[in-house]
């Protein structure tokens, strides 16, 4: 009896220590975000008040309006949405089709090609980017949204193909065979039999794809020049030369950019966690 009580209290203190440590970590990771939102609402000239005033004396919502009028936010938003939606469609269609091929259809060299595909994940971005820039320039695609969208229709990121292939492998092969006997083509099996069943995996790919393209900075930086083609992430460049003057507006802009990502994250949390966990499997 005494012994078990002792064990219980030991267990409780252990749990308390774990929670205290976790709370410290949450504060450490969360503080910058709170700082961002708090600064975005501070009236001009009070951003540097010291010690930090976490709750502004007055909520200066006008910072958001000012950030909107300082840079063409709506144009950036439109461009970003075009890129996000078109790449989403392209990556969902092409990566699931290719994954279906790698998972279900037998052809010589399949294992080799699959390995080759995975190995391209290791390639540094700039090794391919320099020749691609020259290629896109020859197409007269630089400073258009084409180079940021069209490539999505050619397989998409290798990780997506990997993830969807793993998912297709878990579906019974009888499904395909039954459809074959009914005279369905391979293409038909992919579209009408497997895709409807792959919704969970497709959702994972969808959220990862949307967030990646919403957040992308380097691609647009290299490929877009004129302001009317900028994305939201790239638009941050326009604030750069203001530097220290209007930090509240810069933080308002950063907050605006972050909110949709966090909303998507909260709505599809499970898919996110599953997708990220799957990356660990890719290494095995």
């Amino acid at each position, binding site marked *: 009896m005494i012994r078990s009580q002792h064990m219980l209290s030991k267990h409780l203190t252990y749990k308390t220590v774990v929670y205290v440590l976790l709370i410290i970590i949450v504060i450490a990771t969360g503080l910058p975000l709170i700082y961002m939102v708090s600064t975005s609402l501070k009236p001009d000239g009070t951003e540097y008040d010291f010690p930090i005033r976490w709750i502004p004396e007055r909520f200066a919502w006008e910072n958001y309006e000012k950030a909107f009028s300082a840079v063409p936010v709506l144009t950036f938003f439109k461009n970003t949405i075009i890129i996000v939606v078109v790449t989403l469609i392209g990556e969902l269609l092409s990566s699931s089709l290719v994954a279906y091929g790698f998972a279900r259809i037998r052809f010589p060299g399949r294992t080799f090609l699959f390995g080759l595909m995975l190995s391209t994940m290791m*390639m540094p971005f700039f090794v391919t980017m320099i020749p691609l820039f020259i290629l896109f320039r020859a197409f007269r695609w630089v400073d258009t949204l084409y180079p940021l969208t069209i490539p999505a229709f050619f*397989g998409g990121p290798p990780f997506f193909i990997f993830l969807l292939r793993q998912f297709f492998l878990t579906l019974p092969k009888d499904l395909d065979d039954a459809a074959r006997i009914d005279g369905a083509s391979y293409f038909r099996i992919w579209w009408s039999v497997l895709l409807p069943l792959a919704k969970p995996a497709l959702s994972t790919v969808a959220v990862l794809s949307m967030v990646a393209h919403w957040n992308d900075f380097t691609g647009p930086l290299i490929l877009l020049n004129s302001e009317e083609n900028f994305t939201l992430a790239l638009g941050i460049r326009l604030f750069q030369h203001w530097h220290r003057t209007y930090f509240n507006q810069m933080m308002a802009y950063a907050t605006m950019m972050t909110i949709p990502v966090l909303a998507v994250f909260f709505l599809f949390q499970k898919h996110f966690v599953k997708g990220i966990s799957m990356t*660990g499997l890719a290494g095995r």
Partner: protein
Amino acid sequence: MGKQLLKTFPKIGFRKKALSMKQKEAIAGYLIIMPWIVGFLVFSFGPVIASFVLMFTKWELITAPQWIQFDNFTRLIKDPLVPKSLYNTFIYTIFSVPLNLLAALCTAMLLNVKSKASNLFRTLIYLPSQMPAAATAILWFFIFSPTYGLANSVLGWFGIEEQKWLWDIHLVKPALIIMSIWNLGVPMIIFLAALQGVPDQLYEAAILDGAGKWKKLFFITLPLISPTILFNLVIGLIGSFQVFTQVFIMTGGGPGNASLMYVMHIYNNAFANFRMGYASLLAWVLFILVMLLTYLQFKMSKAWVYYEGGN
């Protein structure tokens, strides 16, 4: 169906037809993965070959490319910013990757308790890592402001005087490293998934054998998740060697090139000065370095990574 018939009646001419079925399937297979094959040739393989050829040329995009053989190599050896940026990248990597992974692993272990609260903590800790990198960069630019930013405020809690952070040659790299440790969400989730895959029976057996917390950690947990540690190390290293967005937005490589990272040097050459040939050579050096380091990690991993089911 077809296979069954083939087995039962091997000699009634099904064989030829079966072969052509196989060929048909193969053709269908190639057609179905065709988007990737085209994409691979145009967006990966072609460019890699092109950039290999480009490194023997001088090409500033306005005029035609000139074949200059090994001149870019001589330039590389004489370029003082190459060793400088490599040194900065190495220092950044050596500190940021292990510290980031250690923080991620410790957090994942704390979270590896089955409770509703731990789900909430996981979400809260993971959340900041989904922020757009560009937004993160301006946020941390403000945090490290040389007067009254959050970083100096935290120092103030411990009675340390204000620092110039991104404007200080000695503090700019530590500042970027601190920022990278903060970004622990993704490796944390991967570690957590691995920790949850360690079977409970092993722990139960260890407790029966009288093993304490530390013994369980070093003899069960760490060996079993070692493949995941290796994976995160490799991914972390590849990513850290290509650190760009933060540096580009926050410091532009300064002050005095103290935060000029190697990829930033490539970017400056390729897209600020349009030296396509020289930049291709720089990119290839990075490629080879990354491959070498990854190879070394896998080689060394044989000593410490445990794979279930033998070798």
